[in-house]
């Protein structure tokens, strides 16, 4: 790998480790969300680095029961090999969602509800989430340490300043904070890191018979894309030239202009 690319990855990794260590010390108790996707898996990997081998906090999967079978197999294998304190949180059924939400957004709404229930029950004050600014335009506005009110909602109009690594250190009364160590990373960075560190991935990311998943969501709302990239190296080469957005296969993002902002405002990741 090119030396300067390597240096850029080192800087991203170092920055993320610093964020993880600070938040772990400042906010207690806390947990990390794991979707088994490439981003949150990379996050777990660098948490192992931050804490010298083992993720010291519960690893929570918000389970809609609708992931692809390969994803569940990957979860169980990694949880065992990395000795994760895995907690599968079963999300409430679709019927309990706001019926005015477009159908494709309901899985996300179920996860939001599942997270809310988990926070209420376990009293987590901080939740580590592997989102990135380049994924989606409203995520681009996020903070590294982002406060959530009692009901889990995100007040995008009144975000705390963040500069020189100084972030929010107190949790809003009755609320919690979301901690986003990968916010500054790009999709390409995650793949380069995954390749360099040899981080395991769900095999669905790699092309079979001309199709692969670029983004992994529930099986009823995520579509594979046409691609011949059957290795991580080929994925990287593909990303260096593509002009298709990462979440093109996520049908929920395109239902209406504001649906994603609305979901995030309500507490989605």
């Amino acid at each position, binding site marked *: 790998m090119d030396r300067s690319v390597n240096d850029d990855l080192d800087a991203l990794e170092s920055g993320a480790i610093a964020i993880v260590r600070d938040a772990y010390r400042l906010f207690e108790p806390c947990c990390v969300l794991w979707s088994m996707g490439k981003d949150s898996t990379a996050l777990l990997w660098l948490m192992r680095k931050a804490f010298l081998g083992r993720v010291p906090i519960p690893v929570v999967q918000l389970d809609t029961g609708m992931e692809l079978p390969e994803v569940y197999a990957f979860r169980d294998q990694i949880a065992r090999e990395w000795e994760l304190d895995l907690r599968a949180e079963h999300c409430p059924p679709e019927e309990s969602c706001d019926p005015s939400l477009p159908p494709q957004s309901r899985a996300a709404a179920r996860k939001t509800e599942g997270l809310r229930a988990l926070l209420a029950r376990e009293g987590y004050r901080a939740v580590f989430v592997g989102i990135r600014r380049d994924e989606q335009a409203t995520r*681009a*506005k996020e903070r590294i340490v982002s406060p959530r009110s009692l009901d889990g909602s995100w007040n995008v109009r009144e975000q*705390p300043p963040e*500069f020189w690594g100084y972030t929010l*250190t107190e949790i809003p009364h009755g609320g919690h904070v979301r901690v986003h160590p990968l916010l500054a990373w*790009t999709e390409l960075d995650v793949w380069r890191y995954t390749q360099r560190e040899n981080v395991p991935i769900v095999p669905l990311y790699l092309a079979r018979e001309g199709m692969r998943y670029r983004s992994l969501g529930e099986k009823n709302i995520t579509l594979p894309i046409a691609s011949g990239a059957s290795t991580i190296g080929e994925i990287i080469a593909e990303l260096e030239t593509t002009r298709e*957005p990462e979440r093109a296969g996520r049908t929920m993002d395109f239902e209406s202009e504001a649906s994603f*902002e609305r979901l995030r405002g309500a507490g989605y990741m």
Partner: protein
Amino acid sequence: MSRDARVVVLGHVDHGKSTLIGRLLHDTGSLPEARIAEVVASSRRRGLETEWSFALDALQDERDQAVTIDTTRVWLRIGERRFAIIDAPGHEEFLANAMTGASDADAAVLVVDAERGVEDQTRRHVYLLGLLAIREVIVAVNKIDAAGDPARIAAAGDAARRALDAVGVTASAVVPVSARDGDNVASRSARTPWYGGPALTELLASVAARRERADDEPLRIWVQDVYRRGDERVVAGVVRSGRVRTGDVLRVAPSGKTARIAALRGWPRDAESAGPGEPVGVVFDAPVYVDRGDLLSHEDGAPAAVRSLHVRVCWFDREPPHAGETVRLRAGSADVSALIVSVLATTDPRTLEAPEHGVASRGMVYELALQTAVPVALDLRERCALARRGVPVGAAHAVSLQPLGVNVVAASHLVDASARAERNAHRGLVVWLTGLPASGKTTIAMHVERELFRRGYHVYALDGDTLRTGLSRDLDFSSEGRSENIRRVAEVAKLLADAGTIALISLVSPSASDRARAREIVGEGFHEVYVAASLATCERRDPKNLYKRARAGEIAGFTGIDAPYDVPEAAELVLNTERNDVDRTVADAVEYVVRAARLRAPSRSVNGSA
């Protein structure tokens, strides 16, 4: 492939920052096809021509009001390089968001409207650039399609240059552009023969990459946490500057202790050395007390430990800083309570002069004299933050530090205690608050101190942490160390009381015999106050996470967990913080102290017959 760089785009509201970025994205082929279609559709719904700023302004409000509210960033590709383009809002109300976006930039593009020239927010943003010490600034004079007149365009560019010069920043280039039409954005325009210079993308392509601190600077490691790993204690931190190697002797500031590095732990493998920006896991070859907020260095070139300092701070809060207010000073991982002793100067970055009366505090630059509650180690010009309720409200640099010194003064008094009491109209005494960790001793002491001070008493609160980092920094937490610490505190408290001060001491002081000795040292004016709360309550509060760490085995001999606390049998006052709230306990304590400090019946004659 060359390195990534971060570029912030700044400027007054409506001068066209978002449009310029949208145009850059489009003309460099960085915008996904689907996104272009979305921008076109969204513009059409609002009855607009294609509005490139919509590529960035993702929030509904932003599109509807056509103003950028929050900072955002997108990636741009120019040739082989990647640029994180940071859009910072230009509206006055969102200055903190602009700072949030700009703080880690390598370079800046300052957008200036060709017709309107340099305006208020342009000046504020120019000041931010100076504060952030961003060296590469490209001025983009925008909307040349509307202005037309080259002289006018040149005047706007010159005005921007002068504004930058005034804060010590030299513009690296001035380029006339039309974000709307694309002139000089990604390609040189035929419409500006009088310019003939490079397009914006060419200028960006030569921006220097991410600036890292050199590793020949003095070593600084910010301590973030301490992990217990088997029998080892691993000091987790990040290298701020310099280079650290196994075998180095490190000095811990502010305590001043030293120890040698036995290993630099890492996973999956240990490290031999680490440089700027890198995380470390330091294992020392001897036990040494280190915790979050400490600063590690080599023995040579160690940082100053201070309690008094002046800072220059760019303020983001609606409420201005007040003399007498307590804020948090954050320097690296250190986060200490700091009293604003005085506001030395206020500068309006738009005029670089003192503001007119009644101007909003947001965006003002203050010079403040601070006094910290405990010593803090930091370097001059280090990037700091002032925080209120855990929210960073000001970006600060230390502009002067007064290192802690020692004055040995031998004095034989010609003034006795009663004369001092007479002058002060109250007696000096020692109020000794004892109780479990997190029972509320220091909170009570600090509130009582404030209230008595307000009423004109000579009062000083001394808490366990302050003493441990200063007077007793050579002591450990063994029972011998604790006893000696308590002896010293009692001696200091006695001196304060002799000097006529009401000394409020908050110290766990778990041993009844140690407290008895303190009473003996102080003598007559000693008042023992038991701050009572159950172990379960204290453990639930745990503001410093000490119980958690003691339970995890990271702290040994912790009072209440694996070391005993002797409940006072004959305290002068008991304050129950479990049943009563802070206001109530403070009121009770104040009432008690006021009574105890009251002078005996005045000796002068009472008015009446004379």
